[in-house]
């Protein structure tokens, strides 16, 4: 069974009462298999981020069907989607989206606080993933005391602290220097290696080629969908814990 299957997904933006509608996605159909590292590539404005938000259950399509493990997600309530995100999905954003006024540890604990574990268990799990991204020396720091690369590593730790099946990364290296970018890509590849499905959205082909499969998207439609033959492997500076 496909992990995710999209059928004729469209997304329109428009103000109610106004005639102007923007068609961002114009009928997108594809599947994602468990264990893939899928890169979705396209120029800005192509609809790739919108597509990722829909696959990531952050947004709903205007039309079309989205099956997650065979279940039609359009039938689910907002709260059911929230729980599904909590259990199945981790996000990494270009701008990190760490909460500014809480520590590294508390940021990583955040998804767990909606699970209902004991505080000790929460911290144990969080420390494990923080160690995995090599940030254990910074657990009590505030996000603004970290470099961009460090912040993104914390954000990655947060993304997989719940042990989700899929990790979505939206331009995760976009705000980073190349060395930090390499580290981030290395961690993503390692996570993929450990069995997490990774969906990466980027406009840089060099970044996209770290994946196992590439979908090129342009103007809301899929241009091509091919496996990546000569996959790039990122430098491993931060060894990922097992």
């Amino acid at each position, binding site marked *: 069974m496909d992990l995710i299957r999209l059928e004729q997904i469209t997304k329109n933006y428009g103000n109610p009462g106004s005639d102007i509608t923007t068609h961002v996605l114009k009928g997108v159909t594809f599947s994602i298999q468990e264990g893939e590292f899928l890169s979705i590539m396209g120029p800005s404005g192509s609809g790739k981020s919108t597509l990722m*938000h829909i696959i*990531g259950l*952050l*947004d*709903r399509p205007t039309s079309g069907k989205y099956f997650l493990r065979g279940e039609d997600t359009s039938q689910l309530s*907002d*709260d059911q989607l*929230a*729980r599904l*995100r*909590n*259990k199945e999905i981790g*996000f990494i*954003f270009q701008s990190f*989206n760490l*909460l500014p*006024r*809480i520590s590294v540890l*508390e940021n990583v604990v*955040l*998804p767990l*606080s*909606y*699970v*209902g574990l004991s*505080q000790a268990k929460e911290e144990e799990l969080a420390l494990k993933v923080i160690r995995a991204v090599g940030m254990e020396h910074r657990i009590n720091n505030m996000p603004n005391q970290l470099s961009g690369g460090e912040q993104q590593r914390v954000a990655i730790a*947060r993304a997989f602290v*719940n042990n989700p099946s899929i990790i979505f990364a939206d331009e995760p290296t976009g705000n980073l220097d190349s060395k930090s970018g390499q580290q981030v890509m290395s961690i993503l590849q390692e996570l993929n290696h450990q069995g997490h499905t990774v969906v990466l959205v980027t406009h840089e082909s060099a970044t996209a080629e770290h994946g196992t499969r590439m979908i090129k998207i342009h103007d809301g439609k899929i241009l091509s969908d091919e496996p990546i033959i000569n996959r790039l492997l990122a430098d491993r500076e931060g060894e990922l814990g097992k």
Partner: protein
Amino acid sequence: MFRNFKDKLNISRKALVANKARSILTILGIVIGVFTVIVVLSIGEGFRFFVLKQIEFFGNDIIQVETKVPNTSKTSSSNATTQALGATIITLKSEDAEAVVRQVANTDMYYPGIMGQELASYRSEIKKVLLFGTNANAAKMTKGGIEEGDFLSKEDEIGNRRVVVLGSEVRDDLFGIQPALGELIKIKGQSYKVIGVMKKQGNAGFFNPDKEIYVPVTTMQKQIMGIDYVTIIVFHLKDVSLAQETAKDIALVMRQQHQITNPDKDDFAVNTMEEAQTIIDSVIGGITLLLGAVAALSLIVGGVGIMNIMLVSVRERTREIGLRKAVGATKKDILYQFVIEAVVLTLAGGIIGIFLGALLSLIGSFFIGRALGGSWPLTISVSSVLLGFFVSAVTGLVFGIYPAKKAAGLTPIEALRS
């Protein structure tokens, strides 16, 4: 999944601690609101109590006749200022009172009053004291009671005797713990025998009977002040319900005594306690209204402050809400977080506000009491606490939760993009 209240509390606690400045500002808004309401209403209540106590001391079964400047109204400022500037009306006499009690059936006794300040001394102690020249009825008609010895008698009055009855504070000032009864004190170079000491009364509004020395009215007039008039006469009524008619009868007798035909030329004023009560009620009503307006204003100011901070904070936190939703928070989780945050802030602000308000009221009542030479009661009404709390809480909840609810209703991506 996240069913546990402790988890919810924990999330809110972390968020509050993480946003210290904002939390403190919100609390401050509530503190100001609750604080002001408590203080303002406490002052109002204290004032009412203060005035009512004065009325209570004199009783309500009396009618007062006071001197008045002719051609002025008795409550007018020209009457008050003319007398204050030194125009003394010298026409009110004890004989007028005798005539009233004889002719007006509803009156059965009276006491006259004339006041003056003199130095009194006992051995080496010298004190400035307030003398009150009156007769035997004063003790019967007011709430004052004798602690030791006797009050002034009819014979003391007739005989111009040099005897005094001391208020409890005067006794303490002059004699300390020594016995006072039978001792001689000096006023204007003459010796006066202490025949009695009054029980402690406590301050009765604007005057304090504990600080007075009672002297027979005749002694006061002839030996101390060298005059033959009084400034006030207080009549006792047999039937209080007839106060209005009796007041008219008294005025008639007074005009006869003073040979006045035109009521405008009255050199006296007749006051029933009912009238006094009406005046006091309207004054207190006005003051309460004014204080209420001040309290309302400060509540509005506090409320606007809370509203501002809440609106800004929710807007500022829309991204946070988006992120929380992205990592799995449901709409309810977000709402609970904001409700708990608002409740915690409101409670904290309310408790601090009540505490500070009570503290200032306490300090205020102490100093006002001292300034007025008596006690100003500390009254913190439950309703004022509830009112302050309620308004602040509602403001906090409405302006905190409404925007949070809106933000919680956004899709995570809309919230994240903001």
